C-alpha cells in the first residue's frame, strides 16, 4: 500500500526507474532460482521410482530391464565414466602441452592467429562433431584400430565416443590454460633464468607449478563438459546399457541414454521416473565438478578472477 502511494506520487522519470529496477530484480531472481527449480522438479519427478526402489539398489544394480521393473543404473554410470576417462586421457596432455606452447613459445602475432581458431573450435555445434566422428572415426576404429589390437568392432563404441569427446574439450582446457600461463608474472620467470635454468626448466618447475591450480580447474571444467555432452556421444557410442568389457564394445552414457530413449518411455511404468532420476544424477555430478573448479580458482587467485 505504501509503495503504491509512493508510486502514484512519482514523476514519469522516477516511475521508469522504479518499474525497470523491479523488472531487472525479477529477472535476476528468476535466474538464481532456476537451478533450484530444475533440481527440485527433477527430484519430484523421480520420486515415484525412488519410493519403489532404494537409491543404492538403483545405482549399483547392473540389471537394466524396464519391462520387468529392473532399473540398474550401474552400467550406464560406468559407461559414462569410461567414455569421460578416455576423453580426458587423450585430451589433457595434448591440450596442456599445446597451451604451454601457445602461451610461452609463440610471439604475439601467431597468438593472434591461433586464438580465433580455438574460439571457432569451441563454437562448432556438437552434432557436427558427431557427424564427423561417424564419417571419419567410426571407419578408422572399425577397420584399423580394433584389428590392430586383435579385436573386432562395429566402430560404434566407447573408444570412438571418447576420441570425439576429447576433441570437443580441447578448446575449453586450452583457452583457460593459456590465460593462466599468461597470468604468471614475468619476474618469477626472470628469477629462474637468473639462477641458470633453461626455458623448459623454468616452465616445468616454476610456471607450471604457479599455474597448477588454474590448470586443474580447467581440467575439472573440461571434465564437467565431457560428462554432460549428449548428442555427439549419442551418435557414436552405440547406446547399449551394458558394462563394456573392452573399449571396442558399445556402451552408453547418462546423457546419451536419456537422449536416445526419451521417446519410448511412456509405455513402461516408472520409465519416466528413471529418466528423470538419470538427469538428476547427471546434473548433480556436473554441478559438483563445476563448483570444485570454481572453489580452486577462488582459493588460488582470490575473488578478483571469477
Amino acid at each position, binding site marked *: 500500500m505504501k509503495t503504491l502511494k509512493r508510486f502514484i506520487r512519482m514523476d514519469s522519470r522516477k516511475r521508469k526507474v522504479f518499474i525497470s529496477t523491479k523488472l531487472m530484480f525479477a529477472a535476476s531472481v528468476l*535466474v538464481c532460482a532456476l537451478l533450484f527449480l530444475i533440481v527440485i522438479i*527433477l527430484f519430484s519427478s523421480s520420486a515415484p521410482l525412488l519410493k519403489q526402489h532404494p537409491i543404492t539398489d538403483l545405482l549399483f544394480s547392473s540389471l537394466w530391464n524396464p519391462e520387468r521393473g529392473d532399473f540398474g543404473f550401474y552400467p550406464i554410470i560406468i559407461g559414462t565414466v569410461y567414455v569421460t576417462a578416455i576423453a580426458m586421457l587423450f585430451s589433457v596432455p595434448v591440450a596442456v602441452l599445446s597451451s604451454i606452447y601457445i602461451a610461452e613459445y609463440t610471439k604475439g602475432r601467431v597468438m593472434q592467429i591461433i586464438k580465433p581458431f580455438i574460439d571457432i573450435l569451441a563454437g562448432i555445434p556438437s552434432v557436427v562433431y558427431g557427424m564427423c566422428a561417424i564419417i*571419419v572415426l567410426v571407419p578408422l576404429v572399425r577397420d584399423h584400430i580394433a584389428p590392430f589390437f586383435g579385436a573386432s568392432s562395429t566402430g560404434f563404441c566407447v573408444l570412438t565416443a571418447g576420441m570425439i569427446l576429447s576433441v570437443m574439450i580441447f578448446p575449453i582446457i586450452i583457452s583457460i590454460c593459456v590465460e593462466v600461463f599468461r597470468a604468471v608474472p614475468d619476474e618469477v620467470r626472470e628469477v629462474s633464468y637468473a639462477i641458470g635454468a*633453461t626455458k623448459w626448466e623454468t616452465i616445468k618447475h616454476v610456471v607450471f607449478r604457479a599455474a597448477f591450480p588454474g590448470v586443474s580447474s580447467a581440467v575439472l571444467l573440461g571434465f564437467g563438459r565431457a560428462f554432460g555432452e549428449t548428442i555427439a556421444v549419442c551418435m557414436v557410442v552405440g547406446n547399449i546399457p551394458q558394462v563394456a568389457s573392452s573399449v571396442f564394445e558399445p556402451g552408453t552414457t547418462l546423457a546419451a541414454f536419456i537422449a536416445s530413449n526419451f521417446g519410448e518411455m511412456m509405455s513402461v511404468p516408472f520409465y519416466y521416473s528413471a529418466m528423470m532420476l538419470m538427469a538428476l544424477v547427471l*546434473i548433480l555430478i556436473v554441478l559438483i565438478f563445476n563448483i570444485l573448479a570454481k572453489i580452486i580458482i577462488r582459493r588460488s587467485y582470490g575473488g578478483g578472477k571469477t
Partner: protein
Amino acid sequence: MNFRKIEEYIFKILMLTSLIIVLGSLIGIIAVVLIKGGAAINWEMLTTTPKGGFYMGGGGGILNAIVGSIYLASGATVLAFFISIGIAIYLQREFTSDGAAGIIRASLDILWGIPSIVYGVFCFIIMMYLGVGTCLLAGIVALTMLEIPIMTRGMDEAIKMVPSELKESTYVLGSNRIETAVKVVLRQGLPGITSGILLAFGRGIGDAASILFTAGFSDHIATSLFDSAAALPTMIFFLSTSPIPEVRDRAYAAAFVLLSIVLLISIISRLLTNKFSKYIIK
C-alpha cells in the same frame, strides 16, 4: 648437447605435435563438412521441404530445418536478450550490492555448465504438466534457458569495462540510474554486448539436445508457435546414421548449412566489434 637441452628439445617437439593435433582436428572437421556437404548441396536441397519418401531417399530438401532453426534460434535470442540485458544492467554497483551480484554471477556460471539435455528434460516436464505436445514455443523456451547465461556473462564483462568516471559525470549532470544505463553504459558497451548476443545465437542454433524433445520434428514449415518444428541439428542427428546414402547426403548438406551459419556469425561478430568500437569514448 647435454641432457637439459635434449629434454627441452623433446618437449618442444611434443608441444608442437599437440598443437598440430588440435589445429589439425579443427581443420579436419571443417574440411570433412565442406567436402561432404559441398558435394551434397544444391539449390533444390535448400529451397524445398521434404516430399514423400524423404527418409527412404525420395525427393525434397531441408528448407523445413533451415527455417525451423532460424525461428528457434532467433526467438530464443530475442527472449534471452530481454532477460539478459536486465540482469547485466542490474549487476552494476548502482543497483545491487556486491554480495548479491556475486551470487547472481555464480548462479550464471553454474547454469552455463549445466548440460543442455537437462534443459530439454526440464522443459519437457513442464510441457507434460501443462499438457502441450512438442512445439516451437517449447523449443524456444529451452534454448532461451541455454542462452541466458552465455549472453549475460558476455554483456556483464562488457558493462564492467565501462569506466566509472564516465558514469559519474552523467550523474553529475542530473541523469538517473536507468538513463545512464540505457544511454551511456549500453552504448559504451555495445561491442561486447553485440558479440555476447551473437555468441549466444551461435550456441543456440547449434544445440540439438535441448530441442530434441521440446521442438519435435516435422516435415513442413511451422506456421504457429504451437506447431512442431524441425531444426538443422536435429535433422543431422536423425539422418546421419541412416543406411541410405541419399539420406545421409541430406545430413551432410544440413551440416554444411549449419556450420556456415555458425562461422558466418563468428566472423560478423568480429567485424561488428571492430565497427562499434569507434563509439567508445574511452
